[in-house]
């Protein structure tokens, strides 16, 4: 009789998912329904206090800001990554170009954010350049606002949009574009009407891979954002480390995770329907 080795194969990944995903999520979920401890931690008592305090305008403002930043960054990233990936896929030196996109990743994430502070800060490279060319009379603070956050998020996250788009465009049959042009389409319309629908899976992946890390981002707004451009991640960190309200931190995490999951599920559902 043949042995069924399936369980043995999936055991490591199952263990990994249970220990580092399901259990932490369950802990977070249960903490969010407990009372806060005096110096952090929780009291083992059921309470909806955390969720009640979520419903104040300050938190909702942060939620809204997070959504705006995540949607805007994702849209810009996909819009920029699409022509980039197209260009790379059609280039005779595609491996070199892919390398150029990977190389910045060899530097630490935080250092790359600090590099932007050095560029955008009021005494930074951009200011010095604009003043030396006479375009500016006095220093401007480009940092600590929503736009700085979006810019740096795009810089750090856009490869996650470029790679899935590249791999689907690379597999795309470009004789279809010639066929569309043969049938009367301009190059641009041919790409829009024939290539885009046929690389939808890459676009979906690019959107998910950029939206999810952006929605949960906290390092970027922490370093280049201002107090009025906080994202949910910053709130969680504050409640966990400074205010020490663990149930509140957990409830925000639950909201963040749920919004992401619901969004992703709806998005994937709508995409798979179109696939027939």
């Amino acid at each position: 009789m043949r042995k069924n080795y399936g369980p043995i194969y999936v055991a490591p990944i199952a263990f990994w998912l249970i220990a580092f995903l399901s259990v932490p999520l369950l802990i977070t979920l249960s903490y969010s329904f407990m009372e806060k401890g005096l110096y952090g931690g929780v009291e083992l008592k059921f309470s909806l206090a955390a969720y009640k305090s979520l419903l104040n305008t300050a938190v909702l403002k942060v939620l809204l800001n997070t959504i705006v930043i995540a949607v805007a960054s994702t849209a810009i990233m996909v819009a920029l990554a699409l022509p980039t990936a197209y260009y790379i896929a059609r280039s005779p030196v595609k491996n070199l170009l892919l390398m150029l996109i990977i190389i910045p990743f060899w530097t630490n994430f935080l250092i790359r954010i600090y590099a932007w502070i050095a560029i955008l800060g009021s005494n930074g490279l951009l200011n010095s350049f604009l003043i030396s060319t006479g375009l500016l009379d006095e220093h401007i603070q480009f940092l600590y606002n929503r736009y700085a956050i979006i810019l740096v998020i795009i810089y750090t996250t856009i490869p996650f949009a470029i790679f899935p788009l590249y791999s689907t465009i690379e597999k795309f049959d470009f004789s279809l574009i010639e066929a569309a042009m043969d049938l009367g389409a301009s190059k641009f319309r041919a790409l829009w009407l024939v290539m885009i629908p046929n690389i939808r899976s890459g676009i979906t992946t690019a959107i998910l891979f950029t939206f999810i890390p952006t929605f949960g981002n906290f390092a970027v707004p922490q370093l280049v954002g201002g107090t009025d451009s906080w994202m949910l991640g910053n709130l969680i960190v504050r409640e966990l480390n400074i205010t020490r309200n663990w149930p509140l931190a957990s409830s925000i995490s639950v909201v963040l995770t749920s919004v992401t999951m619901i969004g992703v599920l709806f998005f994937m559902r709508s995409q798979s329907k179109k696939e027939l």
Partner: protein
Amino acid sequence: MKSSQVTIENVSKRFGDFVALNNTSLTISKGGFYSLLGPSGCGKTTLLRIIGGFEMPSEGAVYFDGVNVLPLPPNKRHVNTIFQSYALFPHLTVFENVAFPLRLKKVANAEIKRAVEENLALVKMETESKKYPRQLSGGQKQRIAIARALINQPQVLLLDEPLSALDAKLRQHMLLELDAIHDKVGITFIYVTHDQAEALSVSDQVCVLNKGQIQQIGTPAEIYESPANEFVARFIGETNYIRGKVVAVTDAENAVFESPEYGKFNIWLDKKVQLGSSVALTVRPEKIRIAPGKPSNLPPDVNVLRGTVEDMIYTGFQTKYFVRVNGAKEPLIVFRQHVQYFMDEKPINWKDEVSVWWDTKDSFMVEVN
């Protein structure tokens, strides 16, 4: 539908140092079925892409009804192409694939429906309009590609090895249907193929290409019966190719030819030739007769050679014999059709001594190359 005359004038195409097409000129008449025939890599697709507007020639011009179309992009020329891979849009249904060119032109829905149905009927695919390309067989995809290419009412249809992905039986069938469609729509078809049987069976005119160079242009019968050179003779069908010299010109139509391998024999002068010039003869295998031993009552005006059967291939309706004449480098190929019941014929077996002969009018002179 309206059709166009296509004129190719001194067109050359180079890719870097590589010459894909060399000084090509040809005229394709209105409404004809014109084939570009040649081995893989000879530049057929390149020529087709130049006509379609996907490639610019390095030199020369392309005219449709006397108008130079080189400045026009593909979507401004009245041509459509059937691609080797069909190039159906996988995300669209059969209906929408065929409707695609009309949607681009923002034609009204009712008119689109009418035109698509008419074109699907032309290729006998009216019942499949809701399917997606991946649900179709190769032959069905081919039909949809034809319907889609014809819906813009092009004046010229370009077909790049459209049948090469189909199996042999289906290929025959689709070829006949293409011919029928050509008759019905009446536009100029330019048909690229490496398959000589395809080209011979449906074309009005065939242009044989090799290494970017036109070898011969003619009707299928001209190409087959009187090939211009060794390449054409060998590429189209099977043939016997004999090198030699004209040693005597008997009269305006007859001469004596001497081959180092086969000795002297009489030939018919199908073209003018200088005494003493080196030429080659081709004789098609089906023009050569074969009989065992030394038959006594041969007709007049034949050339007779004697040899040994070196090999034979029985294929039912005929047998192919390889007959080695003493001292020849290659055996002669001879077809014997079994018009009588095979068992009743005088048998010819392996290693038999045989005579082969052909009418002096059945050989053709070709350039030596």
